[in-house]
């Protein structure tokens, strides 16, 4: 396999709140190969966004602890100073956020906002950057870009705003694009347009994408590899084919049988009982144990490790053998 573009090992992130500490990410491990599209799937509070934003230094300032390594092309991002990290953000790694309305500065022209990154990184001169901004707007599918670059965000529709965000993220031709729930705020038809756009851009540039989403449909149709997160941990990680056919973790299986889809009217929906744990204490056992149908004593005592079970397939479960056999 290729040398990974990004390799994250043992990442921990904690937040200080007024009265307590939130253990948001509890030992996250994953890597992204050049050109790969990785999907990180999880429910709210599973730490899927936090884990990625934390090594990019994009979290608010109440982070209490950040540990582990996040090697991007050999450089550990967690060891970089603010200035060095700024050099990488926007130039080598672009980010698209969920809500394009609040993620754009409402009182600055979109053209200026797109040019800002290029000028910061001395990627292009002002004049070139302007031309490139217009080209980018055209490339992401905004009609009449030579007029529209002077508009303000509120003059665009939701889908168009997200296109502007994407143009901004790819302005300096990054090798890695992080898309944090980029279609969650959008209607299904627009979601499809945005995903199609991302796919085209990726193919043209051969950049890697990390797609953070709570939507299994989006992840499985868009990504090459899927990571399922729960309580700040990776529960299961597998290449798409393996994930679709052989996923074994009780949580993954529970989620799969909770998905309500068109055409599955007769599918038996099996709800996962209970709710996600409150992460105000360090984890010392499997976080899924209280909701798991196959849990044993051991699951309440030990934290499961992420183990390789073959075919680039990783699972964090004490009951892996029993479950695995059961699932097949």
């Amino acid at each position, binding site marked *: 396999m290729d040398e990974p573009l990004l390799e994250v090992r043992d990442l921990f992130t904690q937040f200080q709140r007024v009265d307590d500490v939130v253990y948001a990410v509890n030992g996250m491990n994953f890597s992204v190969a050049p050109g790969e599209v990785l999907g990180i799937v999880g429910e709210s509070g599973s730490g899927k966004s936090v884990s990625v934003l934390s090594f*990019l*230094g*994009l979290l*608010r300032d109440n982070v209490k602890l950040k540990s582990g390594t996040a090697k991007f092309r050999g450089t550990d991002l967690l060891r970089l100073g*603010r*200035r060095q990290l*700024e*050099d*990488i*953000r*926007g*130039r080598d790694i*672009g*980010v698209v*956020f969920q*809500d394009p309305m*609040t*993620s*754009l*500065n*409402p*009182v*600055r022209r979109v053209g200026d*906002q797109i040019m*800002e*990154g290029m000028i*910061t*990184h001395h990627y292009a001169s002002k004049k070139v950057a302007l031309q490139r901004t217009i080209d980018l707007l055209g490339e992401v599918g905004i009609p009449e870009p030579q007029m529209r670059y002077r508009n*303000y965000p*509120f*003059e665009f529709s939701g889908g168009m705003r997200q296109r502007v*965000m994407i143009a*901004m*993220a790819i*302005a300096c031709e990054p090798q890695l694009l992080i898309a944090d729930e980029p279609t969650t705020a959008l209607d299904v038809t627009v979601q499809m347009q945005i995903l199609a756009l991302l796919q085209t851009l990726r193919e043209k540039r051969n950049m890697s994408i990390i797609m953070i989403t709570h939507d299994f449909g989006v992840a499985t149709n868009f990504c090459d590899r899927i990571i399922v997160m729960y309580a700040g941990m990776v529960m299961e990680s597998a290449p798409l084919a393996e994930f679709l056919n052989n996923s074994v973790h009780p949580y993954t299986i529970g989620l799969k049988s909770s998905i309500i889809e068109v055409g599955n009217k007769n599918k038996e929906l099996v709800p996962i009982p209970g709710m996600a744990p409150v992460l105000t204490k360090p984890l010392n056992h499997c976080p899924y144990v209280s909701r798991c149908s196959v849990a044993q004593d051991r699951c309440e005592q030990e934290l499961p490790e992420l183990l390789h079970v073959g075919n680039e397939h990783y699972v964090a479960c004490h009951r892996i053998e029993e479950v695995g056999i059961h699932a097949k």
Partner: protein
Amino acid sequence: MGLVQFLIKRVIAILITIIIVLAVAFTLMHVAPGSFFSSANISAQMGALALQSPILYQKYLKMFEARYGLNQPLMEQIVQYVWHSLTFNFGTSFENPSVPIITQLKTAFPISASLAVGSTILSIIIGIPLGVMAALKRNTWIDSLLTTVSVMGQAIPSFVSAVILVLVFGVWFPGLLPVNGWGTPENAVLPIIALSLGNIGVVTRYMRGSLIEGMRQEYIRTAQAKGVRYWSIVWKHGIRNSLTALVTVIGPTFAFTVVNTVWVENIFSIPGLGTLMASAFPSDDIPLAVTSVFILSLMVMGMNLLVDLTYGLMDPRIQLK
């Protein structure tokens, strides 16, 4: 195009406000029982004359009535008064009948205006960097110090800080700066300081709050994701956006500054509108009192108009509405 329409609308609104205020003030001052012009008051003032010399009394009464238009129907009096005021024809005061009020205003108004405007500008110039500092050093000792000091500045009225300044520069260190009068640039120093303390507090606190709020917005994170340098983010996305919001507090702040000017002028014996007012009100010199109020209110309304315009120019979302 939208802006011109907006401007016309606002000017009309101001005109209506002024007319209402003038009409109400006139009615209150001239007609309501107990006013200077009520028959009870007139007979009390001139009763003795009526007994001594009824003819002279009648003559004086006629003159008095003609002079203040009392012989006309009330509605006409009001209309006339409003029209006169709008054309800056204020007549003469009771105390000083030989000098038209407009002449008095010509010296007093520039003094008050320069104090109010000067201190507003000074407060903005000083308050913004202090507010930015407090916001960026949030929850440190610098922040607590700045916040506490600005609360104190806000809480202590200008007439109290003015007397403290008089105490300091009049009693403790006399001769350093003049503590009363007007005419030299030095004369303006202490009054402007007294006026500005509170406003600096307001601007600092507002700027702090709005910058903290602004730096929490998601577009800040977007700028960070683009790799934009910290200070560039603070300036381009934080401070610039906060300034737009700051413009909106300048209106009310200026209104309060004008009131404070009245007080400070009295403490430092500055011959501005406030001093005129302080001599007019207690001695029931109604034309002068109402006129000073009118001029000062006009100043406030003018500033409000300017503020609205600036806001309209700064925020593209308003322009296009």
